[in-house]
């Protein structure tokens, strides 16, 4: 080591008149450094690759375990299974003649998700607008972390609140016969999706540069006009991404819907009756998986539900990734 240091200092002295030798040591001169450099690089690569491999493995296992549900021998029976799964509303996996109709579950998942978005998107966007354009800097510095704490509350705590507080409240104040229903689940999911929607949309709107706003004011637009006609349209891709991320939070949530939605596997009729209980795909997997014998038909059916869910969230994720890359372009002054 001391020798190396001496050599380097010699090298530095000569630097003014040009290097007599390469600044990088060759592997033979610094074997330990060479090896530890490469080894470190390899270890870091492995660590990074683990999470990528995890995603691929999850896809592999979920698909592998759901194939036997459809592949039951003949093509006709396979098609009948697909039809039953997507078109039948009867989910009776433990009946003597089991039925695996997941339509009510798929509709249930979409129902609470859309219900949550109807509540959370307007609130989230308005809060985002306020934080990015209206709130004084010091208030914003306080609000943002507090809103982000909302995302850190464990979902079982939300679920507990839904069952113990919100459900009786809905029953006594709105006269619902049951308090654990689509509305309860949507309300709680909306609160859970809010932090994501607020912070991503706020980022998107802040990313729209000051010069665009000033140009708008310069043309005589008011603050409201600037906000609605200039900033929101310019930030639309980021806002869409915020909505999609909020949607993913809502559709993938399990504990809350399992506790708050009532889990009755049917499609509400009439469709707008939010006081009826419904059941989602996530709640079905969580509720049934515990005691389902491995490699039974029911087990494969649950994996098929999981695969459906995975396809949903994966496509949402792809779309939001694309939209988020659009914000990055805006930030660099493109568009």
């Amino acid at each position, binding site marked *: 080591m001391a020798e190396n240091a001496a050599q380097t200092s010699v090298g530095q002295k000569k630097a003014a008149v040009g290097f007599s030798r390469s600044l990088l040591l060759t592997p033979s001169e610094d074997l330990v450094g060479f090896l530890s450099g490469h080894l470190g690089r390899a270890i870091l690569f492995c660590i990074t690759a683990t999470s990528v491999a995890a995603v691929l493995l999850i896809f592999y296992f979920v698909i592998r375990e759901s194939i036997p549900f459809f592949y039951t021998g003949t093509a006709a029976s396979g098609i009948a299974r697909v039809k039953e799964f997507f078109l039948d509303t009867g989910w009776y996996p*433990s009946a003597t003649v089991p039925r695996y109709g997941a339509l009510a579950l798929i509709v249930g998942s979409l129902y609470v998700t859309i219900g949550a978005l109807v509540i959370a998107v307007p609130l989230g966007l308005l809060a985002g607008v306020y934080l990015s354009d209206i709130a004084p800097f010091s208030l914003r510095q306080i609000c943002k972390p507090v809103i982000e704490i909302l995302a850190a509350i464990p979902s079982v705590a939300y679920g507990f609140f839904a069952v113990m507080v919100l459900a009786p409240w809905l029953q006594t104040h709105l006269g619902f*016969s049951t308090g654990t229903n689509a509305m309860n689940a949507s309300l709680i999911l909306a609160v859970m999706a809010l932090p994501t929607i607020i912070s991503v949309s706020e980022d998107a709107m802040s990313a729209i540069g000051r010069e665009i706003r000033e140009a708008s004011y310069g043309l005589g637009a008011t603050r409201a006009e600037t906000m609605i006609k200039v900033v929101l349209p310019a930030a639309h891709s980021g806002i869409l991404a915020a909505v999609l991320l909020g949607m993913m939070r809502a559709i993938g949530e399990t504990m809350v819907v399992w506790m708050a939605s009532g*889990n009755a*596997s049917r499609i509400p009729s009439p469709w707008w009756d939010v006081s*009826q209980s419904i059941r989602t795909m996530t709640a079905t997997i969580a*509720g*049934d998986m515990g005691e389902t014998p491995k490699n039974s038909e029911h087990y494969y059916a649950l994996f098929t539900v999981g695969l459906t869910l995975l396809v949903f969230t994966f496509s949402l994720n792809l779309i939001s990734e694309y939209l988020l890359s659009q914000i990055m372009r805006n930030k660099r002054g493109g568009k």
Partner: protein
Amino acid sequence: MKKILILAMFVVVAVGLMSVAGAAEEKKALQLDGSTTVGPVGDAFAEAFIKEKGCSITVKKTGSGDGVAALIDGRCDIAMSSRYLKPEEYKRAVDANVFPVAHVIAMDGVCVIVHPSNPVKELTGAQVADIYMGKIKNWKELGGSDMPIVAISRDTSSGTYEVFHEKVLKKQNMDAAVEYVNANPQAHARVKSTAGAIAYVGLGFLDSNVKALKIDGIMPTRQTIAQGAYLVSRPLFLFTNGYPKLGSLTHAFCIFYLTEEGQSIVEAKGFVSLTSY
């Protein structure tokens, strides 16, 4: 260097401990397999046994049918089951020179509960089945006030659901409007706060916040469940190949429910012990 040394010492100690534990395990071993309902009792019995006798007991919970199959194939010493053997299982066992003997270790019973304000005091088993199959939708059809019935069930993977589904609904499908909750306390909480609710919970969850209904004229109590008089009750079994050799580990396990500790375990797991004192 120091760190490496400490790490090495750790490994040596850990390996040492494991080999000691391994040596102790080889003395005696017992394999249990079967019902997920009886499983928790089996687990707790095994834990008490391991502490007391230092033997090794493995408890697998694969379902009653699989447990019996494992007994027939000789893959386990004791099969746990929440039902008696089916005739074809018995035939298969005898063909394989296995002679199953049943040991009833506890009774499993669930009570039908409603909100305390509900004037209905008594239902028949058929009426409860009709409620859960969606044929009766309002309490006024049962002599109560004009209020929609909110039927609440346990999740389909629970043993509580299983006994209710078997004894009350006779294995017919529940209506799609029935709500599901994933634990006894939650069913209790929902009934406590919902005027029109009906649900079923383990005997241990009865209190003044909910009202237990008489079914077919019989109130759910420890006695009526232990005697099998209450509709929603069933025995829980251990099956062995022949009556176990007296004094053997299997024998001790199968009569463990008679001890004070065994009975308190049975009660703690939400079942009814067979003794009445």
